[in-house]
């Protein structure tokens, strides 16, 4: 056939659409081309969530506040978990702020393919823009929630509580990165799996709930070490527990911090992120057929 003859003569093709695709096809140039779309998606996510609500963006604050109040009531007052010199409310707020960012990144990205099947089925843009935009818009929510955390922090300091951050605070950006990368990585892996087998949607729903408890969100890791040392390994090897504990350690100077735990969590987040990206890339090319 003369098709092949004519086309093989000139080779300056812009790109090729074919069945196989390299494992890591992270085309930065293309993503850069679509940077405006990324920004618009972030804007859309932020602006539209609480449209036509009376409280509007206040909801970003209400969620962590009320959860902290309930946690303080249940875990600290009823179950009598001690948080040392740190006020229990602030302790919970720190854990929840960090946990919420991870959780939102995970749940937000895990539905990437199923939720956006409509758009993805009609038009091409680098698919990874979607989970990236979720992670970035959650970053803005995190900033809002950190501001309320800071507000209460100042309040408690002013009222004479002996709390202060420690020198680890310079690791703050790294912690945000670890949380984001872990959430995004796991989310991308799950998003690929839910496209074909919806079992994972159900799993994510209650899995995230359970994960929170084994990530030491409502209690300090020392509590486990004292009361149930035989289960301590669950928390030790759970990178999320290391992140939460590390986050509280740098902001409130409380809990167990080891450099081993820090690098373990960092390494885990990077590995998960790249695995997630590879699986995401494999899925994006034909998920629309199975979704």
């Amino acid at each position: 056939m003369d098709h092949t003859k004519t086309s093989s003569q000139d080779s300056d093709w812009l790109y090729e659409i074919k069945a196989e695709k390299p494992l890591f096809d992270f085309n930065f140039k293309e993503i850069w081309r679509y940077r405006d779309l990324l920004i618009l998606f972030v804007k859309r996510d932020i602006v539209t969530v609480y449209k036509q609500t009376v409280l509007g963006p206040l909801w970003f604050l209400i969620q962590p506040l009320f959860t902290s109040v309930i946690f303080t009531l249940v875990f600290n007052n009823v179950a009598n978990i001690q948080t040392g010199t740190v006020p229990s409310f602030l302790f919970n707020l720190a854990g929840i702020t960090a946990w919420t960012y991870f959780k939102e990144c995970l749940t937000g990205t895990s539905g990437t393919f199923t939720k956006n099947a409509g758009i993805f089925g009609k038009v091409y843009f680098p698919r990874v823009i979607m989970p990236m935009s979720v992670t970035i818009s959650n970053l803005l929510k995190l900033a809002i929630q950190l501001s309320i955390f800071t507000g209460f922090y100042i309040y408690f300091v002013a009222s004479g509580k002996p709390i202060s951050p420690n020198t680890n605070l310079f690791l703050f950006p790294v912690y945000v990165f670890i949380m984001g990368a872990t959430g995004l990585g796991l989310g991308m892996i799950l998003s690929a799996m839910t496209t074909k087998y919806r079992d994972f949607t159900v799993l994510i729903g209650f899995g995230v709930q359970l994960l929170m408890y084994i990530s030491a969100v409502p209690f300090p890791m020392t509590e486990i070490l004292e009361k149930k040392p035989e289960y301590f390994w669950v928390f030790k090897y759970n990178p999320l527990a290391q992140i939460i504990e590390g986050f509280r350690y740098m902001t409130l100077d409380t809990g167990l911090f080891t450099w081993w735990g820090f690098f373990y969590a960092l390494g885990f987040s990077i590995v998960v992120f790249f695995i997630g990206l590879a699986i995401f890339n494999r899925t994006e090319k034909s998920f629309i057929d199975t979704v």
Partner: protein
Amino acid sequence: MSKIILTAQNISKQYRLGVVGTGTLSHDLNRWWASVRGKDDPYLKIGAENDRSKKAETDYVWALRDINFDVHDGDVLGIIGKNGAGKSTLLKILSRVTSPTTGSIKTKGRIASLLEVGTGFHPELTGRENIYLNGAILGMTKAEIKVKEEEIIDFSGCAMYIDTPVKRYSSGMRVRLAFAVAAHLEPDILVVDEVLAVGDAEFQKKAIGKMKDISGNDGRTVLFVSHNMAAVKSLCTRGIVLENGTSTFEGTAEESVDYYLSKDLKNDNLPIKERTDRTGNGKVKLINASLINKNGSRIESVISGEFLRVQLNVKVYEEVKSKFIIGLAIFDSNEVLKSMIVTDEIDVDMNTYLKRGHINIDIPSFDLRGGNYYLRVVLSEGSTNKPDQLDNIDKALEINVLPGDLYGIGRQNRSYNCSILRCEIN
């Protein structure tokens, strides 16, 4: 010939039939096991031809099989075929929504696809915000959209509502706004699915005009999928016909449409000469009847308003001494008479044509609206009264009329089982 801007080689796409369940899990495992051992996907070897009416024998079907074509810079390529022929699958592959199972498409230009207008519109955002969002989804940068913003708003005719959330829009307004964004895309290659079938008449005219601008004046390369044969003929320069997942014809738009219409044949009827459900004295018999287009090829479907030749082949068993008359009566499927031609109203010597053995009845403009009609042929001598009839055969032919665009506004006329009158308004 201008340079090739896009080339498709051996494009195939396999789909799995049925639902996703435990069976798919076992297939996935088999496939994974094959890839671990470095073997080919075991399910690629099987797969039925894409023919809806047949019962599925395997779990896999080839929606597309070995499609090859080249697109030259400036081509407007129409992709035509019946429902389920693989057109949309091909478009999805071209627009990178899904990837082919085998084969590759190489392109030198940026492809923007319009498989739907208003993809990604968010109901809570205002019209203006949605212009930016939709434009970005379609591949424009913010700066590009900014330049065209006023033009887009103007084209959509929604200036008054542009800062109102899109959820308050009527569906028509939403479509207009969406098309306005899409029409201002400037990719190297534009892939368009039948998005023209939206909006009111005024807007459709605008849309067709814009399409013509894009393809004609700007010299943009466009791949266009449509069921609207009139639109394909007027917009496209080249065409390919897909049938059951394979490409069966490639040529100019005109040739492709003609080929498509001629392939739309239903050969389940007995040939006319073998039919016994006929009346008349049998001195002359109709042995064949066919519909022919202006290029002289056989067709089964005709576009409303186009030329149509009805060719009749007759066999004379006994000489006809008085005036030979042919009556053609067109009925709809409810057996209601819709139109007729009787040759004794025309000043023509039919008997010489009778001796020749075939008669052509040329209709310069077949002005029936879209629908299914049947042709009854009556041959008679002297008068058309029953005793004088030589042969009378009902449903000699089925005439499938596709809606046309008689008034030239770029929009199909309504389909009804009746005639359409040409007129001028003043």
